[in-house]
């Protein structure tokens, strides 16, 4: 992990989301599913964001503006700078035979990078609205599922599922694919094991999601 001030090189709307691209500086992009802590202008604490895209010299983040921190990130303009710390946590294990990416909403964020690394496996992406579904264009071989239908209704067996999305979706995926790799979320103050804020119950004990996750094997 390393911390640098990086410069915004692009800010693009992707449906209701914003694709924030920053110059990579000396930071390592890490593995798909790992995340970075991004300084959110005017806020005390940084915000965790999965790496979405890793073109040469850049890091790309897909941000859903749901609160003050994410809104501040979406309001950044090209040329502005922000401190970025990472890569952090454990990403997806890539030793999979028949990968299937399963995402819900902003859970699509880590998949563009993951899809490239896994050579464009099929992806099943659920969204609330067609506008949100515009983000599916960032992922190769993606099949879009719109509410009221759920991704779990189309899950075929025999796949190595790599999933990211809201908690209820992950729980549903876990019920159908017990060996799935699931990328979880928890509010994080630090992202590197300092605060114990991100604790989740895991195998009977509480673990720090930023250290042991965010990607966990379904039990």
């Amino acid at each position: 992990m390393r911390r640098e001030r990086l410069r915004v090189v692009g800010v693009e709307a992707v449906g209701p989301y914003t694709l924030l691209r920053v110059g990579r500086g000396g930071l390592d992009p890490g593995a798909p599913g790992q995340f970075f802590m991004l300084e959110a202008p005017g806020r005390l604490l940084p915000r965790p964001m999965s790496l979405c895209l890793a073109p040469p010299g850049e890091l790309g983040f897909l941000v859903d503006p749901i609160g003050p921190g994410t809104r501040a990130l979406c309001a950044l303009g090209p040329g502005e700078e922000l401190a970025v710390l990472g890569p952090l946590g454990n990403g997806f294990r890539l030793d999979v035979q028949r990968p299937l990416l399963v995402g819900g909403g902003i859970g699509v964020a880590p998949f563009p990078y993951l899809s490239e690394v896994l050579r464009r496996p099929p992806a099943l992406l659920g969204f609330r609205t067609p506008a949100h579904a515009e983000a599916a264009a960032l992922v190769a071989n993606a099949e879009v599922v719109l509410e009221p239908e759920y991704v779990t209704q189309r899950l075929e067996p025999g796949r190595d599922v790599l999933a990211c999305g809201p908690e209820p979706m992950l729980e549903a995926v876990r019920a159908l694919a017990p060996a799935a790799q699931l990328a979880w979320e928890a509010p994080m103050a630090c992202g590197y094991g300092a605060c114990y804020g991100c604790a989740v119950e895991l195998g009977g004990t509480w673990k720090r999601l930023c250290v042991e996750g965010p990607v966990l094997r379904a039990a």
Partner: protein
Amino acid sequence: MLLNASGCLDALTAPETARALDAFVTKTVTPLPRAGNAPIRIVETEAGMLNSIGLANPGRERFLADVLPRLRELGVPIWVSVGGFAAGDYAETCEALDGIAAIELNLSCPNVDAASESAAEIVAACRTATDLPLVAKLSPAAWDVAEHARAVAAEGADGLSLVNTIRGLALDETTLAPRLGTAVGGLSGPALKPIALAAVHACARAVDLPIVGMGGVRTGRDALELLACGASAVALGTVLFSDPEAPVRMRAELAHELAARGLGRPEDVVGIAHEDRLRHRKPLDLARKALV
């Protein structure tokens, strides 16, 4: 002297950060293991944050067996923060500790029930249990924190840590339910800074013990202000969450602040905010025991 605030750094997951400090302070260790409180455990507020971690820790036995030996390998002086629910808890842990630089007694966690004994009684019990330096960590949630400082000083505390967090609450914008799982948590960060400065200022006038100042330090200037109010050392808490390199930055900024003001070394500025107001009084005795 620069430390981390207890509970704001894990030296094992961030050894580089810990090595940049003059001493590493552990998260509070309780007699039995604690999972901590149910999520959500952290939430941002106006110029601050609330936490309700609830002293998540592996408990005394596992701390002594597994954690402390690995901390020792870092080559940084170790302060162990000790907590409990009765004076006996504290004293037993103190007795079991050895080969560390100091013990910080967490007498003030807002996230767990306090011991039934007073802070002074706990310090007294620990004093008989160990010869290690005892640093009493006090809460600013007191009408007169200096009174507590005097009480723990009288029972043999070697230093004070000021301040712990103070109880706060935040509601979810949409549901109006408390955001933290425990509803109430401890407020830290810049919002706490004036409260911390006032506590350090008051206690520096009340007792002659060295003070570790903390509360909302973000910049070298904040550190300088705590020193000026009477702290001999400064601890970094919430700032570490946004910047694991804060210790290095803080030293550089403090050096810069001192130089820009022609003020010499950090030791030289301890208590200078008092000078004017102590003009007609006995000057502050700034000669203090070193703790590391």
